[in-house]
């Protein structure tokens, strides 16, 4: 499973979630998480057509893709990780 995070420096939700991601990354050190900045990494970000609401979190595995849009709770992300890891 791969997780793509699309953030921006002006996005308050992205800022709020930094603490959550730090915790998740330390609890699940094997997760493949790639983080892009909406403004600085335009070329990469365009590939994912993120829309206007940030952050965008994309879970990908074996061609399956699920998106979470906007600020999320830690439990929501952990639930998605659990679901993707089961499949």
């Amino acid at each position: 499973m791969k997780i793509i995070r699309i953030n921006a420096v002006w996005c308050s939700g992205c800022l709020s979630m930094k603490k959550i991601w730090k915790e998740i990354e330390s609890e699940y050190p094997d997760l493949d998480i790639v983080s892009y900045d909406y403004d600085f990494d335009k070329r990469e970000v365009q590939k994912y057509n993120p829309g206007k609401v940030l952050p965008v979190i994309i879970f990908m595995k074996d061609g399956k893709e699920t998106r979470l849009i906007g600020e999320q709770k830690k439990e929501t992300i952990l639930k998605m990780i659990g679901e993707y890891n089961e499949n």
Partner: protein
Amino acid sequence: MTYLDYSATTPIDEEVLDTFIKASKYIGNPNSLHKLGLEAKHLIDASTKQIANILNVKEEEIIYTSGASEANNLAIKGIENYTNRGKHIITTQLEHSSIYGPLSYLSEKGYEVEMAPLKEGRVDIDALEKMITDDTVLVSIGAVNSETGVRQPIEEIGKILKKYPKVIFHSDITQAVGKIKVDLTNIDMASFAAHKFFGIKGIGALIKKEKIKLTPLIHGGKSTTIYRSGTPTTQLIASLAKALRLSYENIDNDIKHVNNLAKKLKNSLSSYEKVYINSNEYSIGHIVNISIIGVKPETMLHALEEDEIYISTQSACSTGETSKAVMALTNDIDRSSSSIRVSLSRKTTEEEIDKFLNSFDKCYKKLV
């Protein structure tokens, strides 16, 4: 043309422009020791004294910047000077992007940033106090939200934070200065820009209590202050003082005038079935935020534009399809995705409000 987007920016007042042009003739570098330099320095000193008197701060507490974004960056990034004091910062979800930008920068350097909870769009002061830890070094809360006009209780917050001498309190007062009275007594740092009150773009200030020592953004020789190097911009500083003086010379009457116009606007708009007034009793009269359910904000903006009426959707410096500020007030996704902002100033006339209301009626009937 009917301009009702004063919270985004304001046109330059003719008198301010006149001051700028006259002050531009002071050709000397204020740091030069000759007569021309001294003349420019005297003009800057007089301007600084005037600004200090109006804001009731010390002259030494004024740091001129290019605007509020730079002032916010200086205040927040400058906190790195206090790394040994702590790395916990409290802010809100209602701030300008020039607050989140430097906070994101600090968070990459190990700072932890937390959002204070809100009640009816205002900071829950009790909850804020409970969030303070031994590691808290900065609290940054804007005085007035740019989208909804909701005024935060910054004076009360300042009083509470005095109990925590390690904590530095910063407020972005950009949407308050020149519109309402602001008491900076218990605020350690405050940022603003002149172009929000009929001044010129390119000048603003950070008001900083003398005891606070920041890491400068621009290092170099002493300018008007060691916290922001570069040749002092005599004409911009003089124009800032003039814009501020004009904004405060009739402030009580101006506030009454704007509040009356806002009341008329709200009363008329609330008669439409699909219109909700988002600005609440805490909002300043200069900002009237409404939602038109089922109509995209951009569609209404452009429909009004056809009648040469200029309003705005969300804050000019953000993106996204829903407004966090409106969501914080209403907890309603439909309202937060269909909001527009009508922003007034002391120069707005009743005729302009009538023009807006006539055009709005026409657009509403066409779009809803």
